[in-house]
């Protein structure tokens, strides 16, 4: 059972260097302009690059109870470790958007949810910039879920990337977003 009404919840996971936290930050920032309540909570599973990092983002016009969830409606995962974890936690009817470049055999098993594989590593490699995989994933995710609007998300990208001191790389990141979005559109 997924959430009622306008509530949207998503968990994003990957290894430290993959920029998953940024995905969460952008989604939360985008939601901030439209929703009354927004919460995001990052979890770092270790200090080192390579250790898993997760971020939960929830937005709603109703009050949000917990910022951490045992089960969630949507998940984004960049690598196998968090894929396995999220598969166990996804709500029936929920969506998992995953990096099909590295999560090859999406063992969908008995899980009652929808899987969307996006080969973001390969797509990033095409752009000759492995670090863009996260924004490609973001574009695909928005397209698949239809949550928020492209403009909102792109505005939020501007805000977050600038505040992270990556303002100079904004253009290529927006291109990456588009690449992901059009891949998802098919």
């Amino acid at each position, binding site marked *: 059972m997924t959430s009622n009404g306008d509530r949207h919840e998503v968990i994003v996971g990957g290894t430290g260097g*993959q920029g998953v936290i940024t995905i969460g930050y952008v989604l939360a920032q985008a939601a901030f302009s439209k929703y009354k309540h927004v919460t995001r909570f990052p979890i770092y599973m270790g200090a080192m690059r390579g250790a898993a990092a997760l971020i939960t983002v929830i937005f709603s016009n109703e009050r949000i109870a917990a910022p951490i969830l045992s089960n969630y409606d949507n998940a984004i995962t960049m690598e196998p470790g968090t894929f396995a974890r999220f598969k166990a936690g996804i709500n029936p009817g929920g969506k998992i958007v995953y990096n099909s470049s590295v999560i090859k055999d999406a063992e969908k098993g008995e899980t009652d949810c929808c899987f969307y594989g996006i080969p973001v590593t390969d797509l990033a490699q095409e752009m000759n910039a492995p670090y863009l995989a996260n924004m490609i994933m973001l574009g695909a995710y928005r397209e698949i879920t239809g949550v928020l609007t492209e403009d909102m998300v792109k505005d939020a990208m501007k805000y977050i990337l600038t505040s992270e001191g990556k303002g100079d790389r904004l253009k290529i990141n927006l291109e990456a977003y588009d690449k992901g979005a059009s891949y998802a559109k098919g």
Partner: protein
Amino acid sequence: MAKFEVEIKQSACKGCGICVTVCPSNCLEIRESFNQAGYYYPEPVNMDDCTGCGACNKLCPDFAVTVYKYKKAG
């Protein structure tokens, strides 16, 4: 003819480039290859100049470098 060989344990390397910097003979270079954790590790490029000084080994913070010496024939 190279008298020495340098081996980088890719999985341990964090791509810091210290070995590249401290090599007095510019024998190492970071190129395109990266490991599972996403680090670009160095590759020996100019081994003929290698003096076997061991700087790359001793100053690698991640214990990733081994320097070998070829035994003289016979």
